[in-house]
């Protein structure tokens, strides 16, 4: 291949994806796609390996496509022909959640299957129990809508209208679904035309050879980068709030092994699958690991499968991170976020300069739906308010914005669009002051958004995590505020569900205000080491109030700015009050069902104002994520005992000192 040819082919393939995106955005029917941009496009090899995606395409969607494609290729093998089109959304064979529908369009070169054009769009509703399909209160996948296992919807150019009819007849706002389907179809056709022109121009063989060379190049870079990371096994542990029904958290466990130029991510030991929405199918563990590995090790090389070849996943079926039928999977983004957090924590200990505080813990799906005042069907507001992002060694997190492992699309809708189209009035769209996780670099603030419902008969559904267990800080940084979704009725705040963040069709009345508060990002480093001038600036901008600056950062502000003497004294007082203790070894980890327990001597518990069952955490300046545990107040020696996994997660040895502190849903 001549010099430059490779680059030209890469540019050309990325151009195809860009064109697909432009097409979807401009011709789609549902606001979730045109306003929300909740869709992605990619080119995939005939065996399912990722060939190209665009800079705006969402890894949540795209990094799962290879798995789906491989299943489709497996199912249809030699029976794939020109004019065939496949549809898929089944989580157990590589889908994300049922709303994300994948169209796979095979493109042939001289009779040979060469590439697939893949378009994955979030359909606003795919049937199921509640409008919008996602709900925090489902018990089986059938309540989340129609499941499409790998299905050929068009055979040699002949569309299976009966199948499509059945599909659309069982979805709300069918006209919109058909419109989105047409958009995907038009987009795929244009992509195929474009690809055929490239086959003509470069020659199909040359083009496919170039694809292999590009994949090999990306793999080489990734292997070099992995090889530079210290070998070892790094463990991480994290929790989802619950399964949407009870209050037992779900634990995710990761043992991440760096071995030369390979990475193995082993999720063995995570909680069993549940009867609630917080499960994922087999594609998502790879998705999460690939997203963080790419971010930490080689963010710049254009995305193709080569970057992922050095990654191996161990994830036994039957856990909530690799669920089987009939576990619902609506909480896919929540489970992926947990896994991303585990990888950040584990890989971050091997690469401390990359560590980043945790964020909102998933999508924060919020649906407000009800009858249209004109009697013409229903209205549906779907938003997924972003939270603050985590802080890093290099700087503060950002306020209420899509985070680095997510595609860049709108998370809330335009107030004026909402008000023009729905009987709703948005009364507030502001930062959630004080919600940041503290640290030398603080996390970003969450969002506070209030929507008043102007009609009777509407309902609210929410599917969100981190309403109970807040986003973690790193390297000693503190947790951000947890998500919170409430309804204000007659001036009084009420809980729309017994399980925070999991709401299924709560009946709203005219005049009710739906209040969404997204979480703050986790902090990085010791808050008492934050520059006093930075804290003063946060106060000037109203991100924190003066009282919070004093209590959380020990920064005392006078009329002329920072009161240096008072600040020094306050910081010394706060530093002295931090509880530090050496850790002693115990033979096994103290685990009760899913929860890690930590037995505290009564004196220590008293000093922390901790009661039995409260959430606490252990950190060190060099730890990744803080290690969470539920306190057990008991008569033990005046020591903190940790089992081998706990010590490994913190990267400490017996005798090392750790900081012990209480974890609250909002920073105090």
């Amino acid at each position, binding site marked *: 291949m001549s010099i430059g040819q490779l680059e030209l082919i890469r540019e050309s393939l990325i151009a195809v994806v860009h064109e697909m995106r432009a097409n979807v955005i401009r011709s789609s029917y549902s606001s979730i796609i045109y306003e929300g941009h909740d869709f992605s496009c990619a080119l995939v090899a005939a065996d399912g390996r990722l060939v190209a995606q665009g800079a705006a395409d969402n890894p949540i969607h795209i990094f799962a496509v290879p798995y789906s494609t491989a299943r489709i290729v497996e199912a249809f093998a030699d029976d794939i022909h020109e004019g065939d089109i496949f549809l898929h959304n089944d989580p157990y064979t590589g889908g994300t959640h049922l709303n994300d529908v994948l169209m796979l369009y095979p493109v042939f070169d001289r009779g040979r299957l060469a590439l697939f054009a893949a378009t994955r769009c979030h359909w606003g509703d795919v049937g199921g129990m509640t409008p919008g399909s996602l709900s925090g209160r489902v018990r089986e996948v059938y309540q989340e809508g129609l499941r499409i296992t790998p299905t050929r919807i068009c055979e040699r150019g002949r569309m299976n209208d009966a199948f499509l009819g059945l599909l659309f007849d069982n979805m709300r706002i069918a006209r919109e679904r058909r*419109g989105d389907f047409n958009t995907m179809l038009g987009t795929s056709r244009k992509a195929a035309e474009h690809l055929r022109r490239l086959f003509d121009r470069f020659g199909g063989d040359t083009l496919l050879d170039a694809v292999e060379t590009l994949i090999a190049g990306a793999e080489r870079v990734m292997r070099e980068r992995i090889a530079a990371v210290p070998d070892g096994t790094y463990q991480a542990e994290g929790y989802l709030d619950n399964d949407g029904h009870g209050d037992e958290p779900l634990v995710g466990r990761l043992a991440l092994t760096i071995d030369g130029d390979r990475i193995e991510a082993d999720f063995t030991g995570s909680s069993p699958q549940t009867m609630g929405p917080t499960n994922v199918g087999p594609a998502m563990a790879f998705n999460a690991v690939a997203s963080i590995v790419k971010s930490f090790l080689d963010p710049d090389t254009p995305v193709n499968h080569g970057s992922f070849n050095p990654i191996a996943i161990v994830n036994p079926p039957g856990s909530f991170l690799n669920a089987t039928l009939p576990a619902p999977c609506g909480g896919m983004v929540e489970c992926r976020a947990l896994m991303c957090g585990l990888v950040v924590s584990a890989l971050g200990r091997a690469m401390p300069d990359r560590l980043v505080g945790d964020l909102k813990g998933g999508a924060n799906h919020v649906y407000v739906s009800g009858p249209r005042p004109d009697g013409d069907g229903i209205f549906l507001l779907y938003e997924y308010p972003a939270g603050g992002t985590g802080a890093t060694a290099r700087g503060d997190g950002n306020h209420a914005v899509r985070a680095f492992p997510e595609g860049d699309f709108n998370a809330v809708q335009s107030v004026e669009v909402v008000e023009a189209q729905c009987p709703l009035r948005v009364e507030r769209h502001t930062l959630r002051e004080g919600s940041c996780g503290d640290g030398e670099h603080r996390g970003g603030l969450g969002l506070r958004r209030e929507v008043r419902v102007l009609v009777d008969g509407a309902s609210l559904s929410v599917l969100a995590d981190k309403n109970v267990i807040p986003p973690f800080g790193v390297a000693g940084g503190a947790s951000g505020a947890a998500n919170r979704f409430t309804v204000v009725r007659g001036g009084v705040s009420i809980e729309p569900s017994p399980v925070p963040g999991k709401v299924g069709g709560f009946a709203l009345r005219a005049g009710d205000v739906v209040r969404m508060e997204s979480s703050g990002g986790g902090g990085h480093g010791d808050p008492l080491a934050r520059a006093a001038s930075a804290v003063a600036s946060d106060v000037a901008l109203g991100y924190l109030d003066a009282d919070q600056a004093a209590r959380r950062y020990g920064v005392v502000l006078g009329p002329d700015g920072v009161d240096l003497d008072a600040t020094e004294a306050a910081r010394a007082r706060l530093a002295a009050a931090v509880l530090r203790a050496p850790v002693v070894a115990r033979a096994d980890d103290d685990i009760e069902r899913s929860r890690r327990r930590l037995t505290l001597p009564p004196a220590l518990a008293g000093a922390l104002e901790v009661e039995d069952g409260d959430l606490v955490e252990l950190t060190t300046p060099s730890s990744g994520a803080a290690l969470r545990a539920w306190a057990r107040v008991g008569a033990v020696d005046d020591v903190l005992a940790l089992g081998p996994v706990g010590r490994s997660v913190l990267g400490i040895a017996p005798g090392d000192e750790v900081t012990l502190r209480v974890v609250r849903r909002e920073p105090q």
Partner: protein
Amino acid sequence: MAAPGFLVGIDVGGTFTDVVAYAGDGRALALAKVPSLPGEQWRGVLEALSALGIAPTAIRAFVHGTTIATNALLERKGARTALVTTAGFRDVLEIGKCRRLAGGLFDAAWQRPPPIAPRDRRLEVAERTAADGTVLEVLDPAALASLAETLSARGAEAIAVAFVNSYVNAGNELAAAAALREALPGIPVSTSAALAPERGEFERTSTCVLNAYLTPVMTAYLTRLADALAERGVVAPVDIMGSNGGAMTLDAAAERCAGTFLSGPVGGVVGALRVAGDAGVRDLVTFDMGGTSTDVALIHDGRPRMSHDNQIDAYPLQMPQLDIHTIGAGGGSIVWVQPDGTLGVGPRSAGAVPGPACYGRGGTEPTVSDANLLLGRLPTARALSGGLVLQRERAERAFATLGRNLGVTDVVALADAAVRIAVAKMAGAVREVSVHRGFDPRDFALVGFGGAGPMHAFLVAAELGMSRVLVPPHPGHVSALGQMLADMRRDLVEVWGGRLSQLDLGDLRARADRLRARGGDLLRADGIAPERHRFAFSVDARYAGQSFTLPITWEPTDVDWTPLRRAFDARHEETFGYADATNDLEIVNLRLVATGLVDQPVLDLAPHGAGDPRIERRAVWLDGWREVDVLDREKLGIGTALDGPLIVEEAGGTTVVPPGWTVEVHASGALLCASG
């Protein structure tokens, strides 16, 4: 009949300030190029005028393309800006709709560009208008008075007022602005609905804040420029080129300065449109390639396309601009090896300083210009205009170093690859304004200008299957020419619409009449006599249920909706691959472009030189080394027909015509080129 005196167009670029002046039919165009003076743009303008050597009093019209707005934003040198919003919405500017809008994928340490008005200068006031325009809460004058005090105490130098739903009813917004103007004389106040009366509080607020931020800087610049010109004896009115492709008065520019971000690039589009039109070409893609960036725009049937949802940096801007797509690749783009071993071109640029290696001014990294030199496409033996002699050995050294990192010794093959990659990027930009908007580039001629445009246009055209290329006369001065020729223009929009099946044509006509009257008033205020007013209406339309709209021309003479409906279905089919004839249409906005025609002189840009055009024969790499003729454009007579491969040199650029292309010197002076 044109009045006596000079028309003058001045385009300020990053490196050079270009000026053209035209004294009347049949006279030669006067051209000059002087170095730009960063921070003192107005002085560069004066020097450019001096360089022309014409009497200031002889100037009768003067249009200026300025980069003041762009520079002030890039360097964050705008005013201390405050924002006043509806209670509950002061953070709309900072949060938007939670998008990053500026990269950040896979980058955990990414930080969002800070909002132009920081949170302590964003104040809320109790007021509310509903989506149907009903005022739910009126303004309290006492609250405004205290707000004004706070603004003053916080040192606000410019104020933006942006209220929720003001696009439907701007009453509260205007009342607040009036009260603030009265309480704070001397501080400019921008209002969101006056600038962008369209749905979308984030975009409208952002637009308003950008405008407020730039107003003091722009006013100061325009005042200084006007004073300096008056001092030199220029009596002609000075107009500023707007991003919408038309000129505006200084007053309008000061009021709507966020409408001047594309002031410079727009000149190129207008100039190319005129030059191509003179050569009978109405469907074209402009390709304006300079040292660090390249601007492309599509013109269909003599009309440039507009774009209404724009973004400057990470900030949305909802004002009509010509749909110009800019990429960070040009002659100075640096060629490098990416981590995966592939060759990269740009976005880093050697800029004007140190410049490409072959300039011999300290640059050592290989650039696209160095590649062209190694391929024989730029001269080495002779000085360029400006006296610079390019140094081949420096370019060779730069590429040899690059080659060692790649294990390649053939610097020519490497240079060829670098140019091809740059061309692929350019082709991507052309695809963006054509294919992505539903146009087939093969139906268009590529018009190559700017310092590096004529050298690359043929390669870009070939990449896209385009069979026609046009190289304007004076390719280095097309932007200034466009400034000189600009008509006055005002864009108006009214949010109006609904389902087509339920809309009343009479209502639309009545609204159109009112809009036209407003447009006429504005043009009269700009000093344009009514017989020179031209009005063009369009509506933003979509299928019911969609969000993105397509602009569709509407004639007030239409007797029913049929022409509109037909035009929309056809446009949708073209753009997205399908039409939905069963679905109702939804109209969202009515738009009016009000144009005030200025005298359009008959330009005579044909070459005047005579004699043998041959400068030399030299070896040029065009898929292999070939000996080709290098010709002097000044000596190519009208009607001359030539076959590629050949090179045409002139002061403003080098045209490289590959084999398989024919060249004809058109009566207008343009080179019309076609491939078999």
